[in-house]
């Protein structure tokens, strides 16, 4: 199988450009000609009609909410009268000086960091093994991909049961070993449990990309290394891995995004942010403060902080895509 076919969706395009993303990224900053087909139509009203549904949905559910979040972050809402007072950066200064928020930020960073690299390491090991074996490859792949279908919330439910201090089979094992396992009381246990559920759910994602990336390394390069006397593990470390580096960088970014924004379901089904805020990540805290404590000003300020983080990660993601395409053989 030619290397490029492994990750090409096909679709009948005859002249797929080699570097589609570099081209499109260039176009993001270019003149009005870019991103326009050389052969195109001149029917402005039809174009407006075709764009209208997308733009209307974005207006109501993206632009207006984003604007509101931004403006709410700078006001204080009176809980009784519903009047708003402009308070400038007060919400932010209160937020950043609050030890709870600092704890939550540090916790989120640790959680994302551990989750990111543990997932990447396990997925890398499995993808390497998949690259080596021939018999049974499809079955292994099928099984390892399965958690992709499972919602974070269900992953949470499954692991909450396994490690439930009263009925959970794995909790019993830990208790038999003399470890007083109880994620409802011990902060470290709770954080560990949430991390395990998050990693278990996300390995499949990294695995898909790494298998594709390892497969895309040209056989000729591997063979050249083999002729030079490199053994399989050395070939993997010095040829395959560097060639897959852009994919790995992309996955690091995506894992952080997952850890930051998509683990809500896991936390909500296992710990609800507890005990004592030990699993209260930044996104979960926005929900807690906004919908449980009804502290809208602080919650909006937190949303703005998250927005800044999200923008940074999106830029990193685009960067990683750019690098990935440049390296691709």
């Amino acid at each position, binding site marked *: 199988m030619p290397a490029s076919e492994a990750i090409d969706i096909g679709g009948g395009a005859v002249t797929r450009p080699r570097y589609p993303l570099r081209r499109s990224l260039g176009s993001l900053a270019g003149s009005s000609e870019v991103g326009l087909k050389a052969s195109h139509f001149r*029917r402005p009203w039809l174009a407006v009609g075709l764009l209208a549904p997308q733009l209307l949905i974005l207006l109501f559910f993206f632009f207006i909410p984003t604007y509101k979040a931004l403006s709410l972050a700078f006001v204080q809402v009176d809980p009784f009268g519903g009047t708003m007072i402009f308070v400038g950066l007060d919400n932010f200064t209160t937020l950043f000086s609050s030890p709870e928020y600092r704890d939550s930020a540090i916790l989120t960073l640790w959680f994302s960091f551990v989750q990111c690299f543990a997932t990447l390491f396990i997925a890398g090991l499995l993808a390497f093994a998949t690259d080596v074996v021939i018999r049974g490859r499809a079955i292994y792949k099928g099984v390892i991909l399965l958690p992709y279908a499972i919602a974070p919330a269900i992953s949470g439910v499954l692991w909450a049961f*396994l490690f439930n201090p009263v009925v959970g089979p794995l909790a019993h094992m830990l208790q038999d070993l003399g470890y007083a396992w109880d994620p409802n009381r011990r902060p470290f246990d709770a954080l560990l449990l949430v991390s395990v559920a998050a990693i278990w759910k996300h390995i499949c994602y990294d695995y898909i990309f790494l298998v594709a990336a390892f497969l895309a390394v040209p056989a000729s390069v591997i063979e050249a290394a083999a002729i030079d006397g490199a053994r399989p593990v050395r070939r993997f470390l010095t040829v395959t891995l560097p060639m897959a580096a852009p994919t790995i960088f992309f996955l690091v970014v995506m894992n952080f995004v997952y850890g930051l924004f998509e683990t809500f379901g896991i936390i909500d089904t296992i710990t609800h942010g507890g005990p004592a805020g030990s699993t209260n990540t930044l996104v979960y805290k926005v929900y807690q403060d906004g919908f449980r404590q009804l502290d809208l000003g602080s919650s909006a300020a937190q949303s703005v902080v998250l927005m800044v983080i999200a923008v940074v990660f999106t830029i990193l993601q685009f960067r990683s895509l750019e690098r990935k395409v440049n390296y691709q053989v």
Partner: protein
Amino acid sequence: MVERHIGLSIFCHIVLLIGAAIVCMPLYFAFVAGSLTIGEVQQVPFPLVPGPHFVENTVAAWKEGGFGQLYINSFIVTAGIVIGKLAVSIIAGFAVTYFRFPFRMTAFWLIFISLMLPVEVRIIPTYEAVADAGGPLRSLFSAIGLTDFLANTTGYQLETALQWNMINSYGGLILPLIASASATFLFRQFFLTVPDELCEAAKLDGAGPMKFFRDVLLPLSKSNIAALSIILFLYGWNQYLWPLLFTTEKSMYTAMIGLKDLIPVADAQPAWNIAMAASFFVMAPPALVILLMQRWFTKGLVDSSK
């Protein structure tokens, strides 16, 4: 072809078997738990082989959670997200790549800037937008004086006519999740790779834009659409945060929220057997999709990130 090492192959098989076992372990224990009675599920040590009550528990869970209705809700919402997002983004992608019109780049930027912010970071304002979808229109109309004008001349109360609350409605569950440009971006990328000759030829044959779109572009996009629908199906079915916020009535819950309600809480009877049996039928549709359409799905996923 390079040489093969028996030792390495065996090691890799062991690694993969351990990996597969770790993936299956929670599912296996969930199955065992789902097949026990409530007394058996609490015994120590936990039984390692399934009991005979799986079907019984599944039926009990289905009835207790009222999953008939919730399943229908989940399917409607998921179908709405898949079809809505595909339809909206394919025509938007078509418009930005195949048409020359004023403010084309502005439209392009307005759409693609939405890639920057995931829905999770604007939870509360989006909630407000859904709870009061007419709010922005009301402010607009009263700002330009239309509200007063209508009330004075015709007695028509625009303020009351524009009270749209989408909480507990399918629209409220679907629309905010369509509001992202990821699929539009994917289609745009794909359309840029379609040879220009096809459009030239269609024009020479006298085809208008919509005919070209229907007879040339849509058939070419078939495999993209298939791959994307699988990913969107998983995305829609597995939604948790939005249904949790946007549904307060049980009849509007999705299957995912129904499952959450079955998890035993601290003081209640620990009916883990029922909850675990339920988790199987809640995760069944996406799991089947992945198992049956694995090739499409992996291609789609890897491709969509290019």
